[in-house]
């Protein structure tokens, strides 16, 4: 029996618009690794969630912005 898992339904984002869902998980992951260091196992969960929800293009754009120091979010 194969068990499939993905980002669960988040009660903070109950409607069809999941843009904030993707963005929030991305921010949560980066805040988590800032606090606990990279490769902390508890942070990996957020990474899985944002990778499931966000298009690759968006993730790559945000990563580039973070590298350049122009990411607009609260990280």
């Amino acid at each position, binding site marked *: 029996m194969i068990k*499939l*898992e*993905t*980002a*669960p*339904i988040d009660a903070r984002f109950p*409607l*069809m*618009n*999941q*843009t904030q*869902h*993707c963005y929030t998980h991305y921010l949560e992951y980066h805040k988590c690794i800032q606090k606990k260091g990279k490769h902390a196992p508890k942070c990996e969960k957020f990474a*899985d969630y944002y*990778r*499931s*929800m*966000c*298009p*690759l*293009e968006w*993730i*790559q754009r945000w*990563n580039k912005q973070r590298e350049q120091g122009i990411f607009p979010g609260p990280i």
Partner: protein
Amino acid sequence: MIVLEWLFLTIAPCDAAEPWQLGSQDAATPMMQGITDLHHDIFFFLILILVFVSRILVRALWHFHYQKNPIPQRIVHGTTIEILRTIFPSIIPMFIAIPSFALLYSMDEVVVDPAITIKAIGHQWYRTYEYSDYNSSDEQSLTFDSYTIPEDDLEFGQSRLLEVDNRVVVPAKTHLRIIVTPADVPHSWAVPSSGVKCDAVPGRLNQISISVQREGVYYGQCSEICGTNHAFT
């Protein structure tokens, strides 16, 4: 009897548009089945009202034609009929509204966590599908582009403007979450037999939850004008 059974087994479900088709395509998800059932409910009342109103109209035109009935009657009141013709038409929309709202709210109710998330990204003029539930980094992803097969390259038996080179494969009888978004201009991801039509709005991720109940090949087309090749001609 044997011949009849054989005919039944060779009927293929209608999951793509047929020429001169009037009704919906066969339902592949509970949502589409609900939509089709609602349509049948409403259609019943629709025919009822159509026949009733047509009969009254034809009767009035027939019996009160100026040559047959030169002196018009001067009736200005009729309390009973006025009450009836107010109450009755307000009850009928209630019969329509009850199944309609039941379906509407049940469509939004997502009680079970989805098992898999698939991203359908619209481009000019193709789709990209991403399956990234099992990525271990930001780079790798199971991603592929899906182009509509041009008319000249179709094989015998394939549908025009519906077939694609790489189909998006989804597990059956599984709760899916499909995230629809575009990379450039607005598009719309539609699969009629699954009861799905979701606009792809730039900068926004739209989520739809479906559970395809039977295996098969389902077709759909972009449903929002997205440039020159939207109709792929």
